[in-house]
């Protein structure tokens, strides 16, 4: 892989082999970013610019995509538009320049709110339940503990559509179809298996002696759990929470089958954004950008916990 003259030590790679490695890795990283950069660029293009040939790298940026994302518009005659007063906002102005007027808000913001509520709600529940269960498995002799843990994990092997069939029927009976509560419960159930598995590993690492000492000092088991174990497990809990959050935020299969209106999240909604004559790509790109940015920020800020969580889960299993 690296050249012969740099082959004195693998323990400390030589300068040439480092340079070659860096070049290839950086090239890969740049190529892998192209689709993402293109999404952000497209979100600032006007519809004609977005579908021009050859694809435009230099263009006049506009907020039209974002305006179209958040509004619904109707076509009007130019006489009618001329008869209106001065435009009240940038979006108003852009829309009128296309011979249209803003008819009202689009469904994007409510869908985005649903995503927020469902993702954070289910993450909170999954991590809370998971922490308790993981502590239970870690510190007490639970009958059939290994089997239970394996069973908990194996629920993740089900294809989501297979799970969705009976859930669909059950939710229809219980009136949970297309409700945020139903989605929160479902995502919690999916996530809690991973949460228990990851957190048990983290809690196993905390020495039992800490709580035992605290209990000798007069703490109850519960107090010891909250005041001794929880603070020690913060990193593990944070790492687990990020995983649950990313899953719930990105999930599509359950969302598209079990929600259609009131509780629909953003992933099934974004692909349905259309303009006149087909998909409105700048608006889709704008919706994608807004949806993806929180996760991007998360990834960069919490990369250490993320890395630990991913590799940790792998090593344990």
């Amino acid at each position, binding site marked *: *892989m690296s050249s012969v003259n740099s082959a004195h030590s693998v323990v400390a790679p030589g300068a040439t082999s*480092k340079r070659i490695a860096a070049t290839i890795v950086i090239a890969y990283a740049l190529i*892998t970013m192209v*689709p993402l950069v293109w999404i952000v660029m497209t979100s600032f293009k006007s519809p004609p610019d977005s579908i021009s040939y050859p694809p435009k790298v230099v263009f006049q940026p506009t907020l039209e995509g974002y305006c179209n994302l958040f509004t619904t518009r109707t076509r009007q005659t130019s006489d009618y538009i001329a008869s209106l007063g001065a435009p009240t906002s940038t979006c108003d102005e852009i829309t009128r320049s296309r011979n249209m007027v803003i008819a009202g808000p689009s469904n994007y913001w409510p869908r985005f709110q649903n995503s927020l509520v469902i993702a954070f709600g289910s993450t909170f529940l999954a991590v809370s339940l998971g922490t308790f269960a993981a502590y239970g498995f870690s510190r007490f002799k639970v009958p059939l503990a290994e089997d239970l843990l394996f069973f908990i994990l194996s629920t993740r092997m089900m294809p989501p559509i297979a799970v969705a069939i009976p859930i669909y029927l059950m939710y229809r009976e219980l009136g949970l179809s297309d409700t945020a509560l139903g989605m929160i419960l479902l995502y919690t159930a999916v996530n809690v298996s991973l949460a228990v598995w990851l957190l048990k590993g983290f809690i196993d690492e905390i020495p039992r002696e800490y709580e035992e000492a605290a209990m000798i000092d007069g703490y109850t088991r519960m107090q010891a759990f909250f005041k001794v174990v929880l603070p020690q497990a913060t990193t593990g809990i944070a790492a687990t929470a990020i995983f649950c959050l990313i899953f719930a935020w990105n999930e*599509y299969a359950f969302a598209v089958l079990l929600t259609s209106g009131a509780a629909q999240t*953003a992933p099934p909604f974004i692909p349905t954004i259309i303009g006149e004559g087909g998909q409105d790509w700048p608006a889709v790109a704008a919706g994608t950008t807004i949806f*993806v940015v929180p996760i991007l920020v998360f990834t960069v800020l919490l990369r250490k916990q993320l890395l630990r969580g991913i*590799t940790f889960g792998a090593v344990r299993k």
Partner: protein
Amino acid sequence: MLRSKTQVKSVTDTSSSILGEGVARATPAPIATRIRGISDRAMAWLFIAPTIVLLLAVNIFPLIWAVYLSFTNFRANRPNAPIEGVGLSNYSRVLNDPNIWQAMQTTAHFVFWTILLQTLIGFSLAYLIDRKFRGHALWTTIILVPMMLSPAVVGNFWRFLYQPQIGLFNYIVSFVTGIPPSSFEMLGSVPLSPWAIIIVDTWMWTPYVMLICLAGLRSIPDYIYEAAEVDRASLWRQFWSITLPMALPFIMLAVLFRGIENFKMFDMVTLLTGGGPGSTTEVASITLKREAFESWRTGRASAFAIILFVAVFGLANIYVKALNKVKQR
């Protein structure tokens, strides 16, 4: 917060000095019972029960229901029609349905190529990043980004990149190879569409394989390489007799996780091709969705779902056995 921390510290100190570690380890059960009137077993269930209840309600109960439905002719769009038991006929129909076997083949093709590409690229990247060049942490983070994003939302955007004529992907390919950009359709042509989904999946999930391989490479202690240096083993030799065998359990784990995930693949393929053109990219999950939520043959779809689950579960178990053998070597 601060107070409790110092408290804990002092408590720990006393415990280790007075009791010693061995005593402390031997005492938990009696102490817990003495301090609270509640037994450890009851305590354990108090911690675990909520999770088990939730899993029973949202995972196990529906699963049992699905098993029951798989023996009936139930159709979810006719909830009031009488439900009749049909024995194993749903299963035999599924197993004799050429469309379903076609879908299984499509899935196998997809799983095979994505795993092959992701393992090759992922391991190579991990190996290169493990050279620890300056800034490797930053570039690793950048490479990770695609796997954090929603396969549905981002997959949907790839539809735009794959547009003939105006799409960036076609433009770049034509720029590099000289083929006119409108002469090929990644999503619309029968030979190319399976590769279109393989490319997006590889773009998205190579970082995951890379991370696990990186963990594997970093778990190899330096002294082994140092010993190899002393023995004047060539780099080539070191790679094949140290690096690869020691990282192999990790590579196999990555393959297992990606295999399970891609066997279930639904979201990205639905948005990219919807199974088309025709049924060229119709993977098992899409067939299942059509049976269950378009044809509304709930009983038959349940049978198919259970067959899929048993297949994944069985294959994964066999694979884990093989993995454990490799680990023990």
